[in-house]
């Protein structure tokens, strides 16, 4: 019986469409991928990759009260853990429900979507309103990897299926097509979008407006009057040609909802991906940032936070006060070019930023949530571009027994990682009762010394260290499976010995399988 099943049996089982999801308390993982929330609730999508099992597991954790003490208590978080190797692609929260679409990496043309009711901690499978004849058309891409919530409805960017609206309370589903007023009948007359440039690839929500992305246009959809406004690829810069929209969004905190997009463009003669903004004054798109950002969170007073795939630990802050009227190239005019990293650092960890959400609380400040590879961070009174204090870090860390009573290699098996371009390594995890000088040596099966990892290096006791209450140095106390002369060790079992000048010592085992 696998571990997830044990957890499910021990803590309660959610049945949903034949699937079993483990329900538990506490964070599932500190690798937080996506944030969704409101003034009083935060919901997070976390993922965990096991290099030994080569498995990915995703989970959603949520909490109904964002008081600092409350969120810091791991037990207050509720978690729904999904089955292994089901790749969650997005998360949206609204009306007490979190919705998670899953990536159809297996080649299916319709994907799984799970809704989690926070009040009852139960899950429900969402099914698309496709007819059997549409489902039978295997050439159609009828999945949505992107979901957003607006005014009582979840919106799915369902590619050839258009924009699917799900009013979850009444369980009413509608198919919306950009530019077409009203819903399309979900019957055999709907054959799906046949023009690839018009399939719905992205959906975001700003205030009460849904921003819809198709490769050929960006659209604003206003649910209140079911109206669509199109923003085609028209450029207002002489040397800018918009090739394809990838993801469009709007600043809901600025007047006129200024519209932005990450788009493939031809800039001069170069093909590139940049951030562009729509200029109402010029009736076209203009270059805003000449860099490929992976995400944006709009704050107040025109400030916005940007984060990047290629520079994943960084966050730059810009300010755009021109509203929807005009566009200024901000590429070299960031307020801060290295804004969050220093405020997130804990010990030797510099976390990667995966998502940012800013929830305005006044004209000049708000609550800042940052999803990172090393936990969830919170600034309760964030003044964009001005605040410089460290963010509150919320993460789950298991304690390690003091006095080297517990010392281990993490992971216990050193394997080649096919998904990483870096040499795999293990950490030595231990906790000293007092500050001490530490030596770590590796031995082979014949107890011949393979390598001295560290020799008589000072380490603090866990109580006296910022590294999660542990004594080991996460950068130095590592082994990559090589000998003292740099040769790669043969596969086999190895032993490590940790000695200190205070008499504490420990032994442990490592399997080298690479």
């Amino acid at each position: 019986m696998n571990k997830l099943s044990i957890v499910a049996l021990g803590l309660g089982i959610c049945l949903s469409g034949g699937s079993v999801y483990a329900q538990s308390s506490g964070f599932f993982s500190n690798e937080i991928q996506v944030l969704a929330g409101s003034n009083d609730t935060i919901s997070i999508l976390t993922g965990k990759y096991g290099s030994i099992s080569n498995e990915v597991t995703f989970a959603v954790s949520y909490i109904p009260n964002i008081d600092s003490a409350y969120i810091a208590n791991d037990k207050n978080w509720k978690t729904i853990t999904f089955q292994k190797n089901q790749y969650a692609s997005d998360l949206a929260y609204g009306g007490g429900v979190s919705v998670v679409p899953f990536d159809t990496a297996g080649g299916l043309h319709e994907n799984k979507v799970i809704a989690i009711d926070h009040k009852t901690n139960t899950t429900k499978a969402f099914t698309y309103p496709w007819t059997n004849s549409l489902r039978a058309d295997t050439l159609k891409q009828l999945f949505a990897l992107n979901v957003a919530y607006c005014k009582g409805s979840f919106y799915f960017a369902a590619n050839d299926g258009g924009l699917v609206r799900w009013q979850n309370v009444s369980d009413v589903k509608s198919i919306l097509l950009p530019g077409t007023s009203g819903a399309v009948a979900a019957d055999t007359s709907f054959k799906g979008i046949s023009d690839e440039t018009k399939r719905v690839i992205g959906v975001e929500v700003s205030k009460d407006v849904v921003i819809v992305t198709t490769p050929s246009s960006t659209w604003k959809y206003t649910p209140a009057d079911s109206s669509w406004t199109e923003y085609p690829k028209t450029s207002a810069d002489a040397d800018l040609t918009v090739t394809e929209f990838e993801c469009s969004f709007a600043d809901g905190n600025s007047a006129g909802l200024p519209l932005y997009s990450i788009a493939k463009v031809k800039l001069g003669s170069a093909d590139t991906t940049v951030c562009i903004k729509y200029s109402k004054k010029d009736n076209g798109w203009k270059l805003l940032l000449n860099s490929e950002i992976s995400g944006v969170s709009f704050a107040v007073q025109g400030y916005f936070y940007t984060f990047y795939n290629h520079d994943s630990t960084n966050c730059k802050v810009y300010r755009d006060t021109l509203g929807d009227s005009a566009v200024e190239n901000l590429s070299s005019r960031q307020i801060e070019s290295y804004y969050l990293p220093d405020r997130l650092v804990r010990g030797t960890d510099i976390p990667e930023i995966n998502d940012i959400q800013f929830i305005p609380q006044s004209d000049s400040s708000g609550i800042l949530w940052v999803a990172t590879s090393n936990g969830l961070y919170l600034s309760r009174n964030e003044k964009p571009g001005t605040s410089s204090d460290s963010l509150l870090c919320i993460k789950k860390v298991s304690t390690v027994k003091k006095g080297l009573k517990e010392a281990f290699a993490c992971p216990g098996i050193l394997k080649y990682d096919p998904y990483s371009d870096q040499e795999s390594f293990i950490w030595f995890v231990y906790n000293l009762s007092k500050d001490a000088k530490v030596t770590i040596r590796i031995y082979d099966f014949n107890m011949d010394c393979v390598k001295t990892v560290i020799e008589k290096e000072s380490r603090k006791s866990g109580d006296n260290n910022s590294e999660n209450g542990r004594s080991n140095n996460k950068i130095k106390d590592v082994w990559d499976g090589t000998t003292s002369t740099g040769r790669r060790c043969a596969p086999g079992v190895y032993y490590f010995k940790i000695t200190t000048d205070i008499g504490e010592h420990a032994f442990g085992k490592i399997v080298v399988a690479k």
Partner: protein
Amino acid sequence: MVTAGQVGGLSGAYLRPGVGAAALGMGGASSASPENFTAWWNPAASADTKENKFALGAGSRSLGRSDLYGEFDFKVPPRLGMGFLFLYRGDPFLDNLYNDDYDNPEKLPDAAYTTCTGKISLSYYVSRKLSAGVNIGINYQRLPSSIDDNGEWIYSSTAGIGAMDIGVSYKWNDNLTIGLVVRDLFSLMTWELTDETYSPTIEDRPLPSFTCATSYTDSLMHKPLKWNTDLKGYLFDGEWEKLERPEAYLSTGAEWQTWKTLYVRMGLGDILLNGDMFTDEYSSDFFCKITAGLSVDLSKIKKGMVANYGVATDKTWAGLDQQLDVTFSF
């Protein structure tokens, strides 16, 4: 400072500890004139024995490492001797392995590391002074390498046939025997490290070793004394590339028959000799095995039966290595 040798971590670590309680008690020095487990120590030796011999033993080493071994030696008159040796060696108690979640590590299921070695030796009695022998080995290893969807270990294994040891034994005079042994020639094991998504292949070639050994017999207080010394050198890696720094390990030990049926032994084993020998770090980090042992002649219970026990400190002071075996000569 690194007082690690060149050998640590390189292929064939499980083949480097000796076999047999008597040899363990003498510091692991038994290559010149082994009384037991000749296929392991010197394949030339079985031609020189006067009786057939069967031996069975087990060992427990520090940190959960275990041995199980047996041998059958017999003469093929007039000049040949043969031996069959089986050795299990492994760590059946891999019980403290964790997954890769640094913040919230979880213990993995218990696992085991298993190796099996077989040696078939053939020796030839060249003259009253000289005998020569060769053996062919079969090597097998099994290692946990991944975890499947059910949380069970996926094991990878490798086997190699054709590893060869060559030995000669020369009686210099009535007191002194000299042995030369080259071990683990042409040994190759190819791992396919099984995984659910990929299977990398790794060639595992144990290092050849060159041993020069002596066995000196005399008497002490009118009772038989034997003094063995093995100097085992490593010059090349498994692919016959010269090691950056050649090195050797010296093992030496003595056996004294204190009573008609009791032999006591003691020795020092695996003293590293390399280019660091004359540095301060070498002396401050000096380590070797301290060994002791005894044998009891149990002929009164069963003719030709001897029980042997050996004990040694390991090189990391993690615990004791012990071996206990029984031999039958007939």
